[in-house]
């Protein structure tokens, strides 16, 4: 991605979270105009019908297993593959 590229965010359409996530997104855009210029849209999809969300589920799942010290078996191999390909990670402090 280049500095001028923009992102449309696609998030799982979970009834109990979607509305507040939209509020959080709008609040962040007001707080950080640089983020508003980068993430230019948010939409909700049912993950059952959108494989990229299923892939993101796998991505998040293996990293949570690692964070909880429960990584093992096939999931360790999955994490190795993803780790080799994607490097943008944080876990230090909550970003403003």
């Amino acid at each position, binding site marked *: 991605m280049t500095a001028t590229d923009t992102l449309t*965010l696609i998030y799982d359409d979970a009834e109990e979270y979607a509305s507040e996530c939209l509020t959080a997104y709008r609040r962040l855009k007001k707080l950080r105009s640089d983020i508003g210029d980068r993430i230019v849209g948010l939409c909700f999809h049912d993950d059952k019908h*959108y*494989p990229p969300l299923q892939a993101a589920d796998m991505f998040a799942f293996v990293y949570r297993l690692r964070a909880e010290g429960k990584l093992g078996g096939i*999931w360790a191999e999955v994490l190795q593959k993803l780790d080799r390909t994607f490097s943008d990670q*944080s*876990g230090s402090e*909550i970003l403003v």
Partner: protein
Amino acid sequence: MSVPSWEHRTSIMAIFHAAFDESGKADREHIVFAGLIATPGPWQKFNEKWMDLISPFGIRYWRSLDAAHRTGQFKCFRESQNDLEKLTLDLADTICEFAEGGSIHTITMEQYRLLPQTRRTEFKDPFYAAFHQGLVGLATGHM
């Protein structure tokens, strides 16, 4: 009004789609948000390959927690662990093949508890603090 150069006009047309999902809710010590990024063309090819991989097993959609416990649609793998492992690795390879960027951001309950009360009130729940963290990371990361 000036007309932007062609280079500028083409550059602003690169709109990436970031599929964004979490693992863990406020009842866990860690909440992880992950984003996978690609332009629509690669995502379309990704969709086709992903469905080609899972469909032969009668699986309509992937869910990692169910796969890990072989529950729900994944009960069919209780007698064929090797098939599930191969499928899982093939899917991971497919992610690596088509996604053009990936971003992973984690918060812990300890981090959340250390936030000032005003920020915790603003977030309402650790889940939304993690969502916020994931968005900031996605927007500012180097992919």
